[in-house]
C-alpha cells in the first residue's frame, strides 16, 4: 500500500497517453502531451518526498536532517521550463498547419497531402 500515490500518478500518465494515441484533433494531442508531462514531473517530486519533511531551505532554528530530497526538485525545475518551450513550438506548428489546411483534424491533413 506504500505505492498507492505512484499508481495514481501512473493513471494520470495513462490518460495523457490515451489522449495522444486516440484523438485526432491536434490541439487534443498537445493537451495529451501536456498531461503526460505533468504526470512525469509529479512522479519525480513524489519520489523526493520525505515523511514529516520540510522544504530544502536553511533557517537558523531548524535541523538539517529532516529536509526533502533537493536533487529531483532541481531537475524538475529545469524540466518544467523545457516543457513550456516545447509546448510553444508544438502550438506554433499546429497554427501553421491550420493556416495551410484550414483544419486541426490529422486524418484530413493526411488526405490532402495525397
Amino acid at each position: 500500500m506504500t505505492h498507492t500515490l505512484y499508481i495514481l500518478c501512473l493513471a494520470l500518465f495513462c490518460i495523457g497517453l490515451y489522449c495522444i494515441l486516440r484523438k485526432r484533433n491536434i490541439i487534443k494531442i498537445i493537451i495529451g502531451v501536456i498531461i503526460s508531462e505533468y504526470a512525469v514531473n509529479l512522479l519525480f517530486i513524489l519520489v523526493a518526498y520525505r515523511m514529516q519533511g520540510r522544504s530544502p531551505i536553511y533557517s537558523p532554528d531548524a535541523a538539517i536532517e529532516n529536509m526533502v530530497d533537493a536533487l529531483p526538485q532541481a531537475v524538475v525545475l529545469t524540466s518544467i521550463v523545457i516543457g513550456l518551450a516545447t509546448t510553444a513550438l508544438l502550438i506554433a506548428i499546429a497554427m501553421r498547419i491550420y493556416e495551410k489546411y484550414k483544419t486541426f483534424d490529422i486524418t484530413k491533413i493526411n488526405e490532402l497531402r495525397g
Partner: protein
Amino acid sequence: MLELYLLLIFMIVGAIVAVELKDLLSSVIAVGAVGLGLSITFIVLKAPDVAITQLVVEILCLIILIRSTLKRDLPFSTSGRWFLNTMIALSFIGIFLFVAYKAIGDLPPFGYPIMKVASTYLKQGLAQTGATNIVASVILDYRAYDTLGEATILFTAVIGVLALVRRIGRKKSVEQEGSDE
C-alpha cells in the same frame, strides 16, 4: 496524506474531463485546472520553488493555448476505423502498464527517499556555495551546465517559434508562387 489523495484524484478527474470534452476552449480550461492542482500538490510535497515555476509556466501555457484555439472550434470526425484505433491505443497502454508494474516495485516506498547524492548537497551546500536555498545551489552551482543546456533548448525553441510564426518571409514566397503561375 489525505489532501494528497484528494488533489491527485482531482487532477485525474480534470484530465479525463479535458480529454473527453468536445469543446476545445473548455478542454483547455480543464487542463489549466489540472496544472493549478499540480502546483498546489507541489506545495504540499514541500517543493515551493517548483510550485512557483509551475504556476507561472501554467498561466503562460494557458494563454498560448487559448490564443491558438479561439474561434477555431471544429466538429470532430468520429467516422473511420474507430474500433481498430481504440484497440491499438489500449494495447499500447496495456504494454506500458505491464512494464510499469514490473518497475514500480523497485522504487523506494513513499516518504523514504534514498538520498545518496542529495545528502552531500544538504550537508555541505551552505558551506560550499553560500546559498540558503539548496535547490538554487544545485541548479546554479553544482549542476550549472544543466541550466546552461536548458537555456540552449529555450533559445532553440524560441528561434523555431519565430521562424514558424513570422510573416515577412512567407509573403515573399506567396508572391513568387503567384508570379510563377
